[in-house]
């Protein structure tokens, strides 16, 4: 049986086996599988050995659960925990999550608030509350909620990213960059944070820095420990690189970067637009026309 790890952005799986010493295939691949693990006595979230040990939580190594601040137990207790009652805040958090999934954000907010009222250190409930507030358009309250959460758990990369995204959406670019930077200090191989930082830097006219950040995404994504690497993210980073290069007037390189973005996919009109721009600046009008047509087709199909 395989379990997910509840650590921040952790992509490792937890292998649970009746074979003494663990599943041999999982033992051979420690980069992707953990044999030993911890389980939260309250919300039942499981954590791989690295997240359990190497990434201290707010309560320190082997401290409380990073989601609900419950007690962490050795994974061998997982089955016996099934018979234990869920604490009320956990039930309300789960209710909030279910309601949010149904798009009932106002009701979800109320459920998350009940969870937080029941346990002030319920980190995931604070985050759920902040997300619900964002969905409801109550951005100032959402910011405050994120601040509360990060006051309790300053290492919550996911919350930092969400806060930074919110700032970026509201064009508070310097502040957003600072928060993305903070996320990267906590999790240097967090590719989503790095790609977003590149984008914010480009929008802030800090082209060289943007270029450097986007290039690092391409380089670091080959590291098997890199987090959040997908074709879409690589395309995003390549496109940011193309934009920065265009802004710097390095059109040949921009064309190559735009091609990379297009090849990684999915089809986004902006990628073709960057290619067309690069080709136009290079004086390759016929190819630019073709790229413009593809941009128009992609825009038409995406309803833009």
């Amino acid at each position: 049986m395989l379990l997910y790890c509840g650590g921040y952005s952790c992509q490792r799986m937890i292998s649970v086996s009746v074979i003494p010493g663990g599943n041999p295939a999982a033992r051979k691949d420690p980069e992707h599988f953990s044999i030993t693990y911890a389980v939260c006595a309250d919300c039942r979230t499981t954590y791989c050995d690295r997240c359990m040990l190497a990434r201290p939580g707010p309560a320190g190594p082997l401290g409380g659960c990073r989601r609900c601040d419950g007690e962490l137990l050795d994974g061998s207790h997982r089955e016996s925990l099934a018979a234990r009652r869920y604490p009320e805040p956990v039930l309300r958090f789960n209710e909030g999550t279910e309601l949010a999934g149904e798009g009932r954000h106002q009701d979800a907010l109320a459920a998350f608030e009940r969870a937080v009222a029941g346990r002030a250190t319920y980190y995931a409930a604070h985050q759920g509350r902040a997300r619900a507030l964002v969905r409801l358009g109550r951005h100032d309250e959402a910011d405050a909620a994120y601040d509360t959460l990060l006051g309790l758990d300053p290492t919550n990369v996911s919350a930092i990213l969400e806060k930074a995204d919110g700032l970026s959406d509201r064009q508070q670019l310097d502040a957003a960059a600072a928060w993305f930077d903070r996320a990267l200090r906590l999790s240097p191989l967090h590719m989503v944070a790095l790609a977003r930082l590149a984008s914010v830097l480009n929008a802030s006219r800090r082209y060289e820095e943007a270029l450097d950040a986007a290039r690092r995404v391409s380089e670091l994504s080959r590291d098997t420990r890199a987090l959040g690497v997908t074709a879409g993210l690589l395309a995003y980073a390549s496109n940011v690189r193309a934009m920065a290069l265009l802004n710097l007037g390095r059109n040949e390189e921009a064309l190559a970067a735009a091609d990379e973005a297009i090849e990684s996919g999915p089809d986004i009109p902006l990628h073709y637009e960057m290619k067309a721009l690069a080709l136009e600046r290079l004086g390759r009008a016929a190819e630019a026309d073709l790229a413009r047509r593809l941009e128009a087709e992609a825009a038409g199909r995406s309803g833009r």
Partner: protein
Amino acid sequence: MLTRGGTVKVTDFGLARARMVAGGPTPAAGAAIGAAGAVDAAAAPAGTVLVTYGGLTPAYCSPEQADAAAGRYVRVSRATDIWSWAVSVLDLFTGGPPPRYGHLADAALESFVGRPPANRPRVTGPADIPPALPSGVADLLRRCLARRPADRPSRMEQVAEELVALYGTVVGEPYPRERPSAVRMLADGLSNQALSLLDLGRAEQAEALWEQALRADPRHAHAVYNQGLHRWRTGACTDLQLVAELADIRAGNRRQHWLDDHLLGLVHLERGDPGSAEPLLAAAAARSGASGPSGGPDPQVARALASARRAAPVPVARILAGHRNPIQAVAVSGDGRRVAAAAADPSRPTGPGHAAAEIRVWDVDGGAAAVPDTAGGRCVAVLPGHAGTIGTIALDGAGRVLVSGGDDGSVVVWDVVSGRPLHRFGEHSLRVRSVAVSQDGTTAASVADDGALLVWDVAGGRLARALRRRRVDHSHGEQVAVSADGRRVVHWEPGTNRLRVWDAAAGQLLHSVQFHRMTGLLGAGGRVGVVDGEGRTQVWDTAAARELRTLAVTRRFGAVSGDGRRAVMSVAGGVEVWDLAAGRCLRTLPGPGGTPPGPGDGVLALDDAGEVAACGQGTSVLVWRTAGPPVALSPWSYARPRDAGEASREAGAVQLAARRGDRLAGEGRWAEAAGELRAARGVAGHERDADLLTRWAAVGRHGRRTGLLGAWHLRDLPDPPAGLADQLGIAAGTRSDYSPLVAGGFALSPDGRLALSRQHSSAVLVDVATGERRHRLSTFGPQIRCVGFTPDSRFALTGGDDGSLLVWEVESGQRLFALDDHPAAVEAVTSSVDGRLLVTGCRDGTLKVWDTVTRRCLRTMRDSPRFVTGLTLGADARFLVSHEFEVVGGLERLHFAFVWELPRDAPPATVPCWVTSAHTTRVGPGGCLGISASSTASALRLFDPPTGELRGMLLCGREPLTRIEMSQDGQLAVAATSAGSLWVWDLTGADDGGWHEPRHRLTGHDGAVTALGLTADGRFALSGGADGTVRVWDLAAGSCPRSLPAHRGAVRAVLASADARTLLSLGEDGRVRAWQLDWDHAFPAAVDWDESARWHLDAFLRRHRWRGARWTNEDVERLLEGLRDAGLGWIRPAGIRAELARASRQQQTEGTW
């Protein structure tokens, strides 16, 4: 329209709309209206005011219609019809033409009324002199011609009532005619009306009418056929689905009617299978001749039969043999004359003497029909192949050049004629996923797991261009195609869901189409791409990057023809051939000898025109000629038009019979009431009328169930229980034929109204009648392990892995309370027949008995730490059977059934059993006898429940028993086997140690019986099998009156409501299907008491005795309901109450209370 029979039919010919649609003249907005708002009659065709145009007839139009015609926004309502009617009546009295402008009729009326009679217009003859306009009628007309629509009478009924009253006043005698009533359309009329709407292009309305027809009569042959034919022709279902539906109707009808054979025969004709159609149509011809007035066969049947006899037989699949390893890839040349197949990796042989990986090419010159049916016949080349597995091959247009790709990364170009490799390309570093070659064989392309998309110059033997060098996401399902002239390469990129078109020479991307969550398939030559997902299938023209058409179905086609007109898909029932242009499945081609080719996992290929299909299955290639003759559309089926008078009389008779039935039922004259209802149901079109069925079932509760009148599919329900594939859902103890998590996670309310299924941390309540989700019962955390209902159907029960049993109100979906004093997960729950007791079973072997009134735990029991998988509580709540197993030595298991005597604080009797199931042990009422599957699993073991002591064995052949059941009265046992048979035993005296013969050995299921239940009266059994059927068995007659084709794959559970009218089946296919059973009944004379009800009373008294509680009126009502379920509803309630009081007194007197 008035028919000869006096029927008035109200119709709207839609002429105004038709004229508008046809482009006839319409008044320009504003232009045709005179100063007073008058419609300019000159604008009408031919200058007449009597011709409808532009949505109105000027001579009869209302002021608001005239306003609308003038371009003003006016809402036209029914009041307009009242105005127009009044204009018509005015015409009758004036005896002349209508006023020129209908919307000025109010003025015309006043002018007419105010004119002296002498000056009124006269017509030619005295007989035509119009009568004088009575003042009452004039007043009525005046109101009808009020300029404000709101001031007119609101309904025509109101006008009619006033006219009837006026008639009496004016004529001096009552109006002589009865007021007619509208005839309610039955399934016949609805089906015919649906066809009319289909003619008018209103397919959605037609569908709705067929649905309505099927609600009126779920087994209405015309409606099932017409709706099915329409759905088949529009791609919403396949030919085999329609065949199955009609075959089910045909099998389920008690009286065989030639129409059933005729309609099924017509479907076979349209699907190009005259061999199946002919015997059906011949039978229909013979029967229609015998029943028809002329003595000859029905002309339509005769025509169809002649057509079947003329038609060419269904194409037979031919087998291309020779490979010894499983085939991995097939290809058909563009001209359809050659077929190639590549076999699997020889390092994984499937049998002795396996050959090396190789490609075989066969000449199928002249099409599939010319292929010799012999292994290796006409094989023109054997290409020795690659070092490893060949995963993909392609042929050029003439089948002379073949390109293959291997999992070693090599791409090889072959000269088929010489059998030699022309080129071997090694640029790919990983497995080649897809290869393609142009029609002329000059350009090839390949895509591999290394991410490279390469174009090859075949003539030059070199790499022409790399269109892509690397890729991030996965490549499973990646495909490539080369256009006929080799200038374009088309690529389906599954990682990003993109269909991409490249200029092969320039290496430029020409088009890129982004999809979402879809799978793609390219036709040979890449002219079309077919993508499916999200409930639809799209066909794309790749050259123009334009969507050609969309099918409202999702089909995972295995191959699409080069021209994009045909596609094929391998399914369990054969190979479906689809006409993509028409958007429909043409037919499903069977395998050799008419049998399906096997599980639907073969690899497929089509030629350019889609006329030759090849399917690699196992070590053979099946080849069909898919084209066949053009599809001859079978005619729609019209029910005989019924005269409205006749229909009205019949409807009246049915209503009268129903009312009489109600009255007789109210008087407790059940047999007579049933007679009336039987007569009503005998009227054509009313056999399965929903109201009559409800009445019939209500009356039937006062009789004995004697037979099955019919059974039909009601609907499929959403939300099958989660974990169908998870089996036990714990680390140990999984079996394919039984899963407590599935069996315990799925329930039907005893009243048959609601289904409940577990979904991890919630359970979903679904309304069986409508299929709608009523409530989600969510725990927001703890996983639900079992579900159930209380006997009164008012409360749902869920057991969780946190050791709580939650009680929910089904009406509101609210959680009422929790019984949560369990030490481990609640794995099973059952209730006493009166709902006063609940028994829960835990994962650690703990059992708890709860009083639902006080919510107190009455007793806690535990023998050892075993996993409780199922509980059965007898009617007297005295004996509880707990099915348990324990894990021994890791994965090994021991299974037990424990028999607990609840009122006694004693260790249980233990019954070892070797079948993991909650259906291996049962105990009769009063604990007189127990039955269990024996340790040899092929005999029924009889035991003494309090001690577990063996009292006899009933041998049931050699096959292991899979399920056993005992009738509620303990008189009868049924044992089902893995061979599909049911052994029916009389238990009276069966434990005397002697040899006994079964009452019946019933066969029918093909494979194991996987679900079994009995009706409350013990007269019928309901079973599900590994063959996917649900069967109803008459245990008295020893027959199977009905077999329902329910599921693909095994039936996992069959649940019945207490009255056995509603049935739910759960299949391995993940479907939950609801069925309705229509029972026949006999009605013994009502009596005050009958000893056959004795054990029910005894059980009732025992239940209350051990609980130490007095019974309430509600308890007695529940007892009466139970007696009706058990076919004892003919005993008068008063008599039962009296006997209950007497028996209670006697027990108290005797000290047994």
